[in-house]
């Protein structure tokens, strides 16, 4: 049974939730829309299709303390950072970002479970929002994601000036408990139909991903066109840091003077010092690094995860790459449909 709420009473709902849980929603600050903690004077932007940084930051933040060491003479005492305990709601997550949580779960929740990520996933309620106006850079349709009916604890639709909620999990039910139920669900059905129509018009909506799986690993790896594709790549980390499914991180120590703070932070396979170990022979040229990124998304991850691609088609890398080199180039250049 769906629930509904007039759109202009949404801040009221947030205020009520904020008493007990932190509300994270797409808000605009300094001209950009990113997920941030909602407060009274935040500019809520549910109309913005995509935030710059994906929603993964709520569960896998860019920087996170792990442990703190303090030296007392010769004795070292260790203070592990405590995991998240407060509840929070992340509101306005699009279908693609919602799928990325599943992909990250396969990495962080598989044995050995990452305690920090697990705690956040457990205390977080994901409220997804259907995409009323998908854009040309979207291509989630290739990965079995339904932008019109995204997965999540609660799925919402904004039809006209009313927002409809459908609880999918216990957390979802708890979230929508004291909302008035919606008698007439037809606007939602109609909105879903429109969205599906628009999704058909996506320029990259229907790519042919055959050939990108574990069995053709070596063919893809040895393809001569990688150096051609990678030539324009600057080796910056934009594509990896806006990507909702990138999960690589580096562990660093910071000497605060009185103790040592060990923290982890996002790392990018595009950086020249990615996985630079003692003997100093990590991937030497940009071609190798470029290949590693897309091989992981389209070949390595699926071969380890029953064909589940590590790309959710959000299109952020299409928009944000300074030189417009991205996964679509790779799929079209190396995939079966070279002529498409």
């Amino acid at each position, binding site marked *: 049974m769906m629930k509904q709420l007039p759109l202009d009473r949404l801040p009221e709902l947030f205020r009520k939730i904020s008493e007990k849980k932190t509300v994270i929603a797409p808000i605009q600050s300094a001209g950009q829309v990113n997920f941030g903690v909602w407060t009274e004077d935040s500019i809520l932007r549910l109309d913005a299709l995509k935030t710059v940084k994906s929603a993964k930051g709520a569960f896998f933040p860019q920087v996170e303390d792990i442990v703190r060491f303090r030296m007392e003479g010769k004795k070292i005492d260790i203070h592990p950072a405590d995991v998240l305990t407060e509840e929070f709601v992340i509101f306005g997550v699009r279908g693609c970002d919602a799928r990325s949580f599943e992909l990250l779960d396969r990495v962080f929740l598989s044995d050995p479970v990452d305690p920090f990520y697990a705690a956040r996933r457990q205390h977080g309620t994901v409220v997804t929002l259907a995409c009323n106006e998908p854009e040309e850079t979207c291509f989630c349709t290739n990965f079995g994601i339904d932008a019109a009916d995204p997965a999540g604890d609660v799925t919402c639709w904004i039809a006209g000036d009313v927002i409809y909620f459908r609880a999918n999990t216990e957390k979802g039910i708890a979230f929508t408990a004291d909302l008035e139920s919606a008698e007439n669900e037809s606007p939602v059905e109609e909105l879903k139909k429109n969205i599906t129509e628009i999704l058909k018009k996506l320029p990259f909506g229907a790519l042919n991903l055959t050939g990108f799986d574990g069995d053709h690993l070596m063919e893809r790896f040895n393809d001569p066109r990688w150096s051609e594709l990678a030539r324009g790549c600057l080796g910056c980390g934009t594509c990896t840091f806006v990507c909702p499914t990138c999960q690589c991180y580096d562990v660093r120590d910071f000497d605060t*003077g009185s103790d040592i703070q060990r923290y982890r932070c996002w790392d990018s396979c595009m950086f020249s010092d990615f996985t630079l170990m003692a003997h100093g022979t990590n991937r030497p040229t940009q071609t190798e690094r470029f290949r590693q990124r897309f091989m992981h998304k389209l070949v390595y991850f699926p071969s380890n995860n029953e064909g589940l691609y590590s790309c959710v088609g959000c299109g952020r890398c299409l928009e944000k790459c300074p030189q417009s080199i991205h996964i679509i180039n790779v799929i079209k250049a190396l995939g079966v449909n070279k002529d498409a």
Partner: protein
Amino acid sequence: MQKIGVFVCWCGSNIAATVDVKAVAQALKNEAGVVFSTDYQYMCSENGQAMIRQAIKEHQLTGIVVCSCSPRMHEATFRKTAVSAGLNPYMVEIANIREQCSWIHKDIAEGTEKAIVLARAAVAKLHKNAPLTAGTSPVTKRALVIGGGIAGIQTALDVADAGFEVDIVEKSPTIGGRMAQLDKTFPTLDCSACILTPKMVEAAQHEKINIISYAELESLSGFVGNFTATIRKKARFIDEDKCSGCGVCTEKCPSRKGLDEFNMKLNKRGAVYIPFAQAIPNVAVIDAEQCLHFRTGKCGLCQKNCSAGAIDFEQKDQLIERKYGAIVVATGFKPIDASAFNEYAYNDSPDVVTSLEFERIMNAAGPTKGQLIRPSDLKHPHEIVVIQCVGSRCTEDKEKGKPYCSKICCMYTAKHAMLVREKYPDVKVHVFYIDARTPGKNFDEFYRRAVEQYDVDYIKGMVGKVAVEGDKLHVQGSDLLNGEQVHINADMVVLATAIEPDPTARSLGTMLTASMDTNDFFTEAHPKLRPVESPPAGIFLSGVAQGPKDIPETVAQAGAAAAKVIGLLCKNELTCNACVAQTNEAICNGCSQCEKVCPYGAITYEDKEIRSPEFRGIRRIATVNEAICQGCGACTVTCPSGAMDLKGFTNSQIMSEVDAICR
């Protein structure tokens, strides 16, 4: 991890009085890497250093931190100690807990806490130190003396006697400097020329000394042992080799309006002149401003009458470039401009003269041929008033006077008074003074003779005003001992003016990068321990250029400077500064930003084979010439990637010091 020994010095009570040295030693014990920490009354003493040697051996220390006085004092001492115990001298760090801590903080708790922080910073830096070895550079076995007064001459003679070549560069046409203008010298009343000219002649005839007169230093580059000086020899318009010094041209010259600088402009001289009889080189010089040939193109009488054909109107300035191992600054002094003291009517009456002008009047070779006569009406004066400290010890008006005591005026005024009283007993001499400062050997006895034997009237007090009244000079001053006003109608007034460095000193100091004090005297490396050296290595100070002093002290300092020069030139090579820049070739961009800021041009570029994870192949790499680099570090900051670093003061060393201080 390093094994560090910390040694906290009491410095007698200088540190221990306001810093709890035991607490500092204790606090440093639990610093990372510190395996030994102790304190002692005098670390720099023999058994203090023995304690260090002992600790190094016993604990196999890899580095030591000495918390003591300024590194500028004993860094070298403790480095030698480390070497004697087999430790690299650059594994020594000094924490300055005396001048920059115990001496300036009264409260013990505050002082101790700061000392601990400074010690920690030194330990933190030491962790990042690496053993360094200094390179060597050749020494040019020739010295350059700038200034041909008694200071320059004496230094040149001493250095030349040790067998080294010396060039004397003298700005005026002849050497001899200020002393040549004097009549007698205190305290023995020797005739100044009699004791100076033999030295001048000796210098001229010494095969190792080369006198470059009427010349100035144009530019200087290089560093100790390897200076390259460019000297501008101004055109004399007279060929030095041909001129015999006969002086015919000086008599024939019709232009008589030039003021004779040698006689303090009290009389006139020809456009072509020889400054004084015993001039060395005994060669005439043409003053282009006064010479009619240059002004109107006519005349040329001197050329016509010169039998040796030495006059050469086409002569041009000559630029001489030579290499030197050491440079001695002996630029001497000049009396300050007395025209600023109009309360003494210096500008109103020619009979108010400065002491040096008075010296010329008394001098037999002077404008009055030794006759004591008044410049105004050439009459013999019967009453002379001398005013001491004109412009000296004058603190309230910086532009007019000098804050310091010029040191020599008390003595030469007593000399003047005695000479006048002895030669002309009829002349009454009054001397207004604040304190009679005559501290040298036989100085006070000399002054007592002036007072008692020649009953010179010494009045303790200052002169308020000197007014020209008719042909008399009404001097109005105060007598502090009797507490009364004194009025004297004097025939002449002599101003014992302050002395200041030669006007060329400031520009010379900039050229030599020698530091100077606010009065333009050259600052010595250390007021007590290194008075004849200037901070930049290879630059030495001789004479009044370094500060007011009399002739005995000047000659003593000249000898000391010579000894330092000889000590330097007798070495075949000099050990260079070990803390020089170094390139990390793996990450050098070869962008030549560093070369642009290097003041010594020590950085060059070459294509080198590079093998690093990031790059394999040929690349343009900066290389530092360790002999030329002086370790200023300008290049390390323009280098964006930090490829250029400075040994001994590396980026990580300084950063760890900052971390330790801000902890």
